[in-house]
């Protein structure tokens, strides 16, 4: 469903040019969840941004649901590509328009794409993410952090995509709210057959949600492993081991 092959991304130009992703390759099968972990600046979010076309200069190949991203970002396939792949960002306070009712934020992509029964679809989406139709008439600042992230998820699902890219979807939330959002994402995935690519700095979140993951450091994928291998402690690279040790969440008995 997602195939990224030998991806290179550069930011800036000339003397200050930075080679932020170097030769990244990954594939995600339909209905699977794949995790990308690593520290800030390691290039994980940049991979998501290059898939949706938010990065000006890249080389390599990116394919989503059989569509070449070069056609998807600008060519004739653009409308189809936009409906196929959607993104949820870390901070819904920044990604939702502060002066627009959240109901409009969710229905807007449907209007742009000429869908029908928009009001009914919006109500159904609100029910699906655990809010009521009355929440449509709120502004983002009138909702809690968890509710705002639910709205961002509803907006991403409005076009009935096959692939959802999630960039640190719960790192701005308390653990109790994180549990609710992760449960919601897992249920939506099962019901709709979604494919997820999830970026997180939290290995426990990735282990919970994903069947496989890639560890990134300084722009490169340094290790790709299955969820089971992670649980067994089969990390082969020191950097991954340090990451696992540092994200130790167990409260000692």
């Amino acid at each position, binding site marked *: 469903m997602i195939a990224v092959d030998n991806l290179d991304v550069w930011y800036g130009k000339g003397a200050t040019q930075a080679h932020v992703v170097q030769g990244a390759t990954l594939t995600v099968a339909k209905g699977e969840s794949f995790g990308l972990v690593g*520290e*800030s600046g390691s290039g994980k979010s940049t991979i998501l941004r290059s898939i949706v076309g938010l990065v000006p200069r890249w080389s390599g190949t990116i394919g989503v649901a059989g569509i070449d991203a070069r056609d998807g970002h600008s060519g004739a396939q653009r409308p189809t590509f936009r409906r196929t792949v959607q993104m949820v960002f870390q901070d819904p306070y920044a990604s939702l328009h502060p002066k627009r009712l959240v109901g409009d934020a969710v229905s807007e992509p449907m209007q742009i794409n000429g869908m029908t029964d928009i009001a009914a679809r919006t109500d159904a989406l609100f029910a699906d993410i655990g809010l009521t139709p009355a929440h449509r008439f709120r502004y983002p600042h009138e909702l809690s*952090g968890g509710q705002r992230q639910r709205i961002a998820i509803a907006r991403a699902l409005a076009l009935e995509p096959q692939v959802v890219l999630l960039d640190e979807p719960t790192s701005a939330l*308390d*653990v*109790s*709210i*994180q*549990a*609710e959002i*992760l*449960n919601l994402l*897992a*249920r939506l995935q099962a019901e709709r057959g979604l494919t997820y690519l999830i970026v997180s*700095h939290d*290995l*426990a*979140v990735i*282990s*919970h*949600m994903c069947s496989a993951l890639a560890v990134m450091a300084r722009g490169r994928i340094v290790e790709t492993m299955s969820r089971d291998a*992670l*649980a*067994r402690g089969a990390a082969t690279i020191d950097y991954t081991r*340090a*990451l*696992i*040790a*540092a*994200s*130790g*969440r*167990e*409260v*000692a*008995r």
Partner: protein
Amino acid sequence: MMPLLQIEGLNVAFTTEDGGEARAVRDLSLTMGREKLGIVGESGSGKSLTARAVLGILPHLARVSADRMTFDGIDLQAANRRQWRRLRGDRIGMILQDPRHALNPVQRIGDQIVESIRLGAANAGKRLSRRVAWAQAQDMLLSVDIRDPARVMRLYPHEVSGGMGQRVMIAIAFVRQPDLLIADEITSALDVTIQTRVLELLDQMVSQRDMGLIFISHDLPLVARFCDRVLVMYAGRVVEEIAASDLADAKHPYTQGLLRCMPRIGGPQGPLPVLERDDDWLAGAP
């Protein structure tokens, strides 16, 4: 022995738009010595407001009352401006979450540390030359693991990483040698590996100087690893006080719920347990 900090019956409240009262901190009491005390709870549980009440830096609209609030025998509620100037920074230090907001963006890092050192000296009635203060600042940066202090001191805050910025904040707090340090979510914005290093540093500095530390965080396991004792706050109230080593045996359903709802590496993949909030918790009942 006199406790370092003693609070009894602290309440902080705000007036809501409809004229009602929002109680942000409710009947909070704590007594601490020269130890590492963790305060955990979700956003809005009153952790930071408690810390700000100790320093007397709550927003003007906050209504504060307490039966007792003393620091090293000094009645904080009766302290005048001169006394506060000697307390804040000199005796009670504070480090905040984001060094990019806490540091002055248009002043070089070295000048900000030097300013803190010279202010401390002036409060003690001493005059300290800029050159001596500069040398002291360099030594302090070395002790927080910054290997090329001369270079870092010439930089502006936006030119350093989050981890480096947080070490600078620790240095600025420690040059005054406070008796109590309040650290409010100081590692939340850092990567996990850097988080570990910053905590090691803080631990080392606090132990060496025999100080008290109030460590505020929403990360329960982190607090358990790092602190001696933990207060768990829910909706402005302390619902549980527990030795960090006993956290796995926490009694309060809220504390248990917070621990259970976290995913684990290699844990089961089904739905995570969700926290069921009970109105009884607001009354402070266990």
